């Protein structure tokens, strides 16, 4: 029977190499996979492209990756209060692709759903339209937004079963449910792992088909 439980964070990120594209779930601190973030740091990989809503605000979040200078580029919507990122950005050491939050999550959704992109009215008439194709549909202007995919998605759930079905905790669900669909290897750190059947099928947010590895951090 399928069993995606792995032994700890280091095993969970096995195969994550220099130059990888990595999605990181969480909105602010809610749902941030802090143990996985530390494991990536410990693994010594570098030159990462990161896709996440924020760019860290201190402590064991993405700011630790910027302090260690292992990020080449970040695709995000709100890199505010991100001291370490801000310093590297001003020094020209890291590339930023700033994406409106709803467009960011929908680009990830498109990536995971096998779509070639989507048309969004967000950004028309602003500097966010620069470099994008403008397409008129039904008399309204839209921008062509292209999909985002990743090598790894690092996520945080409330619980998983051994098959990899995931439930999240309150607003910690945020971008994670969509990121789980859009990466080659999807890794979820969870508070608890239960037997198949223990999670109500009606409540499962991320079905196991999307999930490759789950583990419970040693501290949890």
């Amino acid at each position: 029977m399928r069993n995606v439980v792995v032994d700890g964070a280091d095993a969970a990120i096995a195969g994550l190499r220099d130059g990888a594209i990595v999605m990181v779930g969480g909105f602010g601190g809610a749902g941030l996979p802090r143990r996985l973030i530390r494991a990536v740091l410990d693994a010594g990989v570098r030159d990462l492209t990161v896709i996440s809503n924020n760019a860290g605000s201190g402590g064991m979040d993405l700011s630790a990756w910027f302090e260690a200078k292992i990020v080449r580029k970040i695709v995000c919507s709100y890199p505010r209060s991100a001291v370490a990122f801000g310093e590297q950005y001003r020094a020209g050491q890291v590339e930023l692709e700033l994406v409106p939050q709803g467009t960011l999550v929908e680009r990830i959704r498109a990536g995971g759903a096998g779509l070639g992109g989507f048309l969004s009215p967000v950004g028309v008439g602003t500097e966010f339209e620069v470099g994008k194709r403008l397409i008129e549909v039904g008399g309204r202007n839209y921008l062509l937004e292209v999909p985002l995919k990743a090598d790894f998605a690092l996520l945080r759930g409330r619980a998983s079963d051994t098959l990899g079905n995931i439930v999240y905790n309150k607003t910690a669900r945020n971008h994670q449910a969509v990121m789980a669909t859009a990466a080659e290897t999807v890794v979820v750190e969870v508070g608890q792992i239960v037997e198949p059947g223990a999670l109500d099928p009606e409540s499962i947010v991320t079905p196991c088909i999307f999930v490759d590895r789950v583990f419970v951090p040693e501290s949890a």
Partner: protein
Amino acid sequence: MKPLSRENLARLVASSLPAGAFVNLGIGVPTLVADYLPQDLGVMLHSENGILNLGPKPEPGLEDYDLINAGKSPITINPGGAFFDSSMAFAMMRGGHIDVAVLGAFEVSCQGDLANWSTGRSDGSPPAIGGAIDLAVGARQIWVMMEHVTKSGAPRLVERCSLPLTAVGVVRRVFTNYCVLSVSPSGFVVDAIKEGLSLDALQAITAAPLCLADKWCVIRDDGQIQG
């Protein structure tokens, strides 16, 4: 004549929301509106990080950092509330399911253009946009809540925005510490004006032409509308 305090401006916006509306409050000053919603109004708050029917701030010591609003502050969820992922949260916005979004702004033009994401300063700091632009395009009505002038006294209500735009022609109403305006095809219309302030005095701190609504009202110090 004193301008409205932030709290009384929040009270004014709260009492102006339509009963039963689905409302998103932007990060910053608009968040204050939540504290003044009349109980019987039945407004349901939405936050783009994936929650509908937000409740008030938790009691000290009961904060849950997996239960936060878009400003990343701990909140609660009311009975009948729901959690969902960000993709659905933004479908609610872009799809026109949010009745009113109350946003802060740096500038609003008399055509309803909104500038609220960048101060345009080129000090090398990284830009940040978040969900403001998605809200500005998707909500059925955009209300702006802001101080009428900048700290240095420059008008924020202008003929043409000088700062980078968030969205074009989207603002429906503006609530400031001096007045309530509607954005009409012919420009700003004053629906309500702070008690003791003349239209000429208001015009002097506004960089676009104002006209007075046929049925205009007076705003009292406490943020209540009079007659």
